């Protein structure tokens, strides 16, 4: 697991046990869903959709968890930045007519720069210090971005169409191609981040700062610059996630809010700062959401997400794979 501590954590017995319990719970929930709906196809379809959507949640949560793990900042503006990146992608596709996924070329670097600017300008230095202040600043930023988008683009939803969108049959279930690509993108990005954190000098420095800031400073790491860099990388992840998710949802200025909630749940579930945990947490939340709609007909699928969130917060605030501090 990629927690941000310098020493490699091996899978221990407790982790295996929790993984087993979790897998058993998931199987049980699916079995119950089968009994509830009586149609294997319906359940299979929601399991597939859940897992694929979950990959997307993991993708969005990865940047958030990186920022939390290294900087201890709960970034309430992550969802709003995602929305900004989506409008950017929409704008690029609209004006240039490029393939939607090519918008990555614009959205990732632009979001990287926005992230660096936000950290330098708003979060570091005096006034950005305490936890409450950082919460308030990111909250203010999210309000600013969301309502700025609302002001300039209006509330009418927009969409990005994938040219040559196909429906892919998957053992009876049917999924949109874009959903599958987004899932693959999530895995790829997760692997990339894992590689970055584990195998590069930069990653080692990031993990060192996360584990012990003053100590890292002593061995010559420029902690402030590294914080800015980490925040920028986390924000760039939102840029990538936005492009991959854009064909799947309708783009509105306030879309960030709903993803923010899910992303926080995923981050807490996976253990704050745990990039692979975010991916696993995302898959679980995707499943929970889909199964909720089977069990509680007509209720919002987010309700199940909240139940899981509250249980995890209370029972395992360090996340499924973390250890008690």
């Amino acid at each position, binding site marked *: 697991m990629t927690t941000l501590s310098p020493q490699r954590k091996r899978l221990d017995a407790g982790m295996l046990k929790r993984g087993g319990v979790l897998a058993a719970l998931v199987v049980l929930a699916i079995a119950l869903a089968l009994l509830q709906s009586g149609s294997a196809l319906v359940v299979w379809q929601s399991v597939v959709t859940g897992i694929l959507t979950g990959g997307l949640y993991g993708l969005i949560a990865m940047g958030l968890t990186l920022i*939390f793990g290294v900087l*201890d900042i*709960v970034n309430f503006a992550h969802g709003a930045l995602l929305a900004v990146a989506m409008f950017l992608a929409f704008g690029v596709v609209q004006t240039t007519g490029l393939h939607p996924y090519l918008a990555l070329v614009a959205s990732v670097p632009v979001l990287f720069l926005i992230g660096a600017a936000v950290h330098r300008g*708003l979060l570091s230095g*005096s*006034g*950005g210090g*305490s*936890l*409450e*202040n950082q*919460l*308030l*600043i990111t*909250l*203010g*930023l999210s*309000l*600013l971005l*969301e*309502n*700025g988008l*609302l*002001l300039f683009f*209006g*509330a009418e939803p927009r969409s990005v169409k994938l040219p040559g969108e196909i429906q892919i049959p998957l053992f009876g279930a049917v999924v949109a191609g874009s959903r599958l690509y987004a899932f693959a993108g999530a895995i790829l990005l997760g692997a990339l981040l894992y590689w970055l954190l584990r195998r590069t000098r930069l990653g080692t420095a990031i993990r060192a700062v996360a584990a012990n800031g003053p100590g890292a400073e002593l061995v010559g790491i420029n902690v402030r610059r590294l914080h800015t860099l980490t925040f920028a990388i986390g924000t760039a992840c939102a840029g990538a996630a936005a492009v991959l998710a854009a064909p799947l949802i309708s783009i509105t*200025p306030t879309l960030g*809010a709903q993803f923010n*909630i899910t992303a*926080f*749940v995923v981050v*807490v579930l996976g253990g704050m700062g745990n990039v692979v945990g975010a991916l696993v947490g995302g898959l679980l939340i995707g499943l929970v959401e889909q199964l909720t709609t089977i069990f509680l007909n*007509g*209720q*919002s699928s*987010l*309700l199940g997400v*909240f*139940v899981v*969130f*509250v249980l995890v*917060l*209370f*029972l395992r*605030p360090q996340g499924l794979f973390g250890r008690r501090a």
Partner: protein
Amino acid sequence: MTATIERPAEKPVKAPPLHPRRRQLAVLAVLVLLAIPLPLVLPPALGAVAVRILIFLLMAVGWNIMSGFGGMFSFGHAAYFGLGAYTSAYLLVEHGVSPWIGMLAGMGVAAAVAVVIGYFSFRYRLQGAYFALATFAFAEALRLIATSSDFVNRAVGFQVPLIQGESLWQLQFAADSPAYFWVALVLAGLAVAVSIVFLHSRAGKYVTAIRDDELAAASLGTPVMRHKLLTVALSAAITAVAGAYYTQYYLFVNPDLAFGASVSIQAIVPVVIGGIGTVWGPVVGSVIMGSLSDVTATLLRTPPEFLGFLQGRSGLDVVLYAILLILIVRLLPKGIVGTLKERWRR
């Protein structure tokens, strides 16, 4: 030279200063007296702004007790606002109960829910960001439950039925009646008074001690849990009054208006602008935020030439107070009142 004993210059004997509680209550009384004639002199449009300011003030005072005095940073005060709004609306619409009784019931429900949420949060030692996220999650969960329950009309919510004529007992007056302002003024004045009395009470001193150093306070035998829960309940009850009054004033409530994240933000922002943990911070912050939202509303209705594209758009008020929020946190981390107080002492 004869040795003289240095002694400090004699100071003229001054009257002992007023106890801060008395001083603050006296200031409050003066402010309320000054505010009474306002709706008679202000044009009706500004009268509505004044009522909105007072509703902001109620929410701000409620949030400040828990998060300012108590140091428990809540991100979900919409939960208590919404419970107040929904309890009174439900009792009025479905059972014809007077909004006053509905308001009291809403305070009770909100306080009870706050105690339950608080108990579990403190029992499992949720702190800082985790506590903020948990309170946020509870408010969102309530919003979703309200949106999907037939019991409270799902997304439609409640519409307060109009009565014939005016009645204080039914809390309905003519649309531009100054009575709406006066009732809100009494409620907000009472809320500020309660916050002043609470701050200087024994319980209040315990709570600020727990906020400043929980471990030290606990080791000196402070019943930490009890006082935290008391604070949370008081805070929720005051916020619920705002919710109940909001419904009665706008005659309408739905899940987003009651439990939406923006409601929690409206409780937080005035206090941050004014000064977290100060008595007058919520007052100053609400006046600024309320006036600001009026300025932007006018601007959007009739924008000047170069801002013509803003016509009919929404979001400008939030943009402005988001900028204000960020600026205040960056430049005056103690808020306006907190910073002034610091300058004053020096």
